[in-house]
């Protein structure tokens, strides 16, 4: 074969239409992203709420401390991430190492399908079925039996079950397909020979996974953690329905708090026409955006290939 073909010499160089026009549409995602940030900055009118903005009291129309919501977002997303990673790891290991191909061929897509269920459907199921179940069965049982552990005692849980436990449960279900997908991907990318080398040395499958596959795929697993967290952190509607969103810290495990996304969603209606309230909400949106983007960038950096996933929010 000849050397790499080059551009035909008769073509004019310089800024011809053919060379400029294609670039323009490529800038669209950046334009949208920049547009979002700019618009939020405009609507916030760059109001300086002072240090109180990072305080703990959110009491429109007078006080604008968003610390409660930041804490609430982390309080709901981190436990959900923990559970989603644990279960996702287990499922991914089972799928790649232990289960035969004829099972995983349909079971894996089934778990991936979980990701496609709209969050409002999760929300209505959570609000009407799971929350009462938590409220009547699980929370009282926890309260009665392990109430001596600090955090599990104190104020009696609500009968309708709305609160952190069911919120974390729903978020786990929503982050689970993502963590499973990414960890499975990471484990599958382990080269066959490394795997077989481990087994050949006399390690059991479990030991191979533990000592060979997981360290090899650790970047992918870490990215699963970040991206799963990003999903749980930005979840809006399901949390708004299932967590009794209040602007206060929960006193114990069964209590409620507010997340940034849910509070933004629920109170925009009330803030119509009140510029200060809208400004506070816009600035909260900027904080949410910043954290989500940071988590996303870090998570993606860890996966150094062009990957796209047919999963919302990924």
């Amino acid at each position: 074969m000849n050397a790499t073909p080059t551009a035909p010499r008769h073509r004019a160089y310089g800024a011809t239409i053919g060379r400029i026009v294609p670039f323009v549409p490529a800038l669209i995602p950046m334009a949208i992203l920049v547009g979002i940030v700019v618009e939020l900055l405009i609507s916030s009118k760059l109001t300086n709420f002072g240090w109180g903005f990072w305080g703990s009291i959110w009491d429109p129309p007078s006080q604008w401390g968003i610390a409660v919501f930041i804490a609430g977002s982390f309080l709901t997303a981190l436990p959900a991430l923990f559970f989603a990673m644990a279960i996702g790891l287990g499922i991914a290991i089972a799928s790649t190492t232990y289960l035969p191909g004829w099972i995983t061929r349909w079971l894996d897509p089934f778990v991936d399908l979980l990701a496609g269920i709209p969050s409002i459907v999760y929300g209505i199921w959570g609000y009407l079925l799971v929350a009462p179940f938590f409220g009547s069965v699980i929370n009282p049982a926890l309260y009665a039996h392990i109430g001596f552990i600090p955090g599990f005692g104190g104020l009696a849980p609500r009968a309708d079950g709305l609160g952190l436990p069911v919120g974390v449960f729903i978020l786990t279900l929503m982050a689970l397909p993502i963590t499973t997908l990414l960890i499975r991907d990471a484990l599958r990318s382990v080269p066959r020979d490394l795997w077989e080398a481990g087994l050949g040395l006399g390690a059991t499958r479990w030991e191979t996974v533990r000592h060979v596959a997981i360290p090899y795929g650790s970047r992918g697993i870490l990215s699963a953690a970040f991206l799963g967290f990003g999903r749980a952190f930005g979840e809006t509607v399901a949390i708004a329905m299932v967590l009794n969103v209040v602007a206060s810290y929960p006193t114990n495990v069964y209590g409620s708090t507010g997340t940034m996304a849910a509070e933004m969603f629920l109170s925009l209606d009330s803030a119509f026409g009140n510029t200060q309230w809208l400004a506070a909400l816009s600035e909260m949106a900027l904080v949410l955006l910043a954290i989500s983007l940071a988590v996303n960038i870090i998570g993606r950096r860890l996966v150094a290939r062009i990957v796209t996933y047919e999963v919302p929010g990924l």
Partner: protein
Amino acid sequence: MASAVNHLRAETAEELLFDRSFRTRWRLGFDKAIGWVLPLLFLVAIIPILDLVYYIASQALPTFTWTVLTSTNPYDPDALGVPIETTAAIMLFAIALAVLLGLFGGVATAEFLPERAAGWVRMAANMLVGTPSVVLGYFGYFLFVITFGWGLSFIAGSVTLAFFMTPYIFRISDLAYSSIPRPIREAAYGSGARPYQYVLRVGAPIAFPQILNGVFLALAIGVGETAPIVLTTTQSVIFPPTIYSPVTFLTGTIWENFSQPAGSPSLSLAFQAALLLMVVVVALNILVRVISARYQKRLEGLYQ
């Protein structure tokens, strides 16, 4: 490892093959046990989903008649006809706009951008995908409803949703064109094709299934979104909407009615909308996977 058989110093094959030391038996037993326990974790994922589907179906189906889907009577409390039609209208408009923005962008990134710039653009697209939908809803509200003055309307909702779906289409078209096999690309350019000829005549037939896939995927994701729509539209009972009229979206119907007291017709309406939504989304997702599988075969065929 003191009590185990030392595999480096074993003297007979028999010693190795019939290693009955406690440690080895424990390791093998543990492995076997884990092999049973871990698959059970699948149930943690599967059982809630089955429960969810069963619950929604059991609440929606008893009052489900054909008229629920077709009745467009604006004042019938148990009619999904109007939300279905307006949802379809919104999705159509939104996906058209999203394809317009995303397809050109994705192809341009795959074909014409130098690698460094492409890296930045792809990162921007990924960041957009990771943006919480409520932030996009805020953007839509502030820009379209207030600043542009479109009000809580069909067009505000559609355009916001289009912006939401654009990065998915962008990524998929980028990926589709990037993964066209190199020999085909070289052959095309080697035969003297100009870039647009390559894109239209050579690349498009190959990339089309994957892009179509992406369109269905974006539809599946977009139809299940609540926040961008609820923040930019308000309830309406009529169809067809004009450009500025309010519209009802399926997820909006669920959102409005889910807190109604048990037994009221509004609550069953919410369930019926939820069931319909789930069916549509799952169908689209299955369609996406089927097309993926067929496309895979086709590409391999090209390579023979």
